[in-house]
């Protein structure tokens, strides 16, 4: 997968037929077509192994008829668009105040150590990325982590590892 991503950097990107249809729908959904940029970036990210590559932006610029620079501007402003490749499981550990009061930072350190990764790095098998992130609005159930689109709350190191290992087995197969 790492190879595919490198290829992607230089290569062309194209959405699936459903993805193209989605873009056309979004372009006419809002009062102004620029509002479609965020939803379409999400779509590209989904179809591009979890990140928005330069090729994705170029492609969107062409089919949306919006300058590349503007799409870049939007993509770079928001943290949820990954501008670098991420693992298939993107583990985001909240380190903001309520989680910090309940061991969130220690949890992030523990996971980085356990899986021998620096924060933000992709594991060699392309499976994992661990990021330290800001408040995710799950403060009453701290500490917590988000993996892809799901929240996992009231964690301790053992529980977090167990969740990651199970997902890794599931996604790896």
């Amino acid at each position, binding site marked *: 997968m790492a190879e595919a991503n490198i290829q992607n950097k230089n290569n062309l990107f194209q959405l699936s037929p459903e993805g193209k249809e989605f873009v056309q729908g979004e372009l006419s959904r809002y009062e102004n077509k620029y509002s479609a940029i965020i939803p379409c970036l999400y779509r590209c990210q989904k179809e591009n192994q979890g990140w928005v590559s330069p090729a994705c932006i170029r492609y969107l610029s062409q089919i949306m008829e919006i300058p590349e620079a503007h799409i870049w501007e939007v993509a770079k*402003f928001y943290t949820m668009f990954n501008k670098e490749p991420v693992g298939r499981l993107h583990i985001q550990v909240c380190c903001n105040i309520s989680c910090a009061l309940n061991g969130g930072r220690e949890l992030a350190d523990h996971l980085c150590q356990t899986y021998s990764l620096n924060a933000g790095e992709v594991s060699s098998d392309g499976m994992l990325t661990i990021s330290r992130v800001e408040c995710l609005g799950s403060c009453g159930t701290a500490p917590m982590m988000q993996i892809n689109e799901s929240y996992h709350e009231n964690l301790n190191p053992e529980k977090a590892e167990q969740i990651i290992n199970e997902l890794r087995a599931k996604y790896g197969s």
Partner: protein
Amino acid sequence: MEVKLLTEHYHRPEYRKLSGYKLYGGYQVLAKALQMEPKTIIEEVKASGLRGRGGAGFPTGMKWGFLPSNHEPRYLLCNADEGEPGTFKDRLMMEKAPHQLIEGMIISAYAIGSQKSYIYVRGEYFDSIRILREALAEAYKAGLLGKKILGSNFSHDMDVYSGAGAYICGEETGMISSLEGLKGQPKLKPPFPALQGYLKKPTIVNNVETLAAVVPIVRDGAKVYRQNGTEKSPGTKLFSVSGNVVRPGNYEVPLGLPLKELIFGICGGLKPGRKLKAVIPGGSSAPVLTAEEALRAHLDYESLAQMGTMLGSGAVIVIDDSHCMVDLLGVIAHFYHHESCGQCTPCREGTGWIDKILHSILSGQGRLQDIHLLERVSEHMMGKTICALSDAAAMPVLSFVNKFREEFEFYVREGRSKVRGVSHAQM
């Protein structure tokens, strides 16, 4: 004591669906509202004294009153970009009772004469977004949205829009920029959104909890709504309690409740053997209260303002004596630096400086004059920028340093935390 005006049925799983919501009176208030004059609804909301539940606490009816009185198209935006650290109440409301929000929004839209609304939800709330989309589909199918709602002459369309991870989009003009497909940078006011908002059209931006509260206000009338809360802060409010309490969570209580009762009564107090050290009463940007102050604080807009802090979004962050205030301020400062949109120099540079100075203190490299520098930088960030993020970043710094100065001085002098005994570098 909890008073569940909005949250009464949240424990019922069926409440999330249209059929379940209807079992408990759902959409009956909308039917009633559509028989009323829009003006009457606005007057009722004004009379209720409802204030914005997102953080600023601005009177809702007054905000609606700023709209021009012509028939120009206007938009209603629901601010569901819940991002103030410590806040998780809107997520609960959207996940447990999406139709309550939708009903409140249709009534509000009818009152202000809006044909189109958006719910702008923070991108990480995938579940909330999915649940709201399902609820909207149900509402359209049942004729509660779209053309001629419930056989009336009122038509309204509603859509959900997902943000993409930017705290600043919780600021209303930042949210408007984001919805317009731009970077989510705030715009200079005036013109206020009520006159020139989304696509330069009149726009009202209200928080999730504010819009949901319109339902009981229209149902029971302002007088009944005012039976809870204080004279100037009427009604109930959801508080998100987090940090070092036994039972963290969301609790709906009448405004004016003693903070002590929330922490030690409802939330079961602190963990055994721990003492209360400090409380941040309204999200991480609210100035911190010492334990002594917290014990005499009341949860309403006025009394917290009198104590030099704010009710904010209602995020109560409880800190026990095992935590180092220098360390915690480091966490907060890092956040605001990360989230500054970069538009205004005092904020972009100031948040960066604060983050760097604290980092240096926390790694044992601090100098005594750094504490003074923190204060000076913060003072120069207040009231000098387009939006309130700069102030939000400066207020915690000033209050932490001012109220826990001794801990900061110890850290600088000894190169380690007074509480933990070591510095970040030694950990």
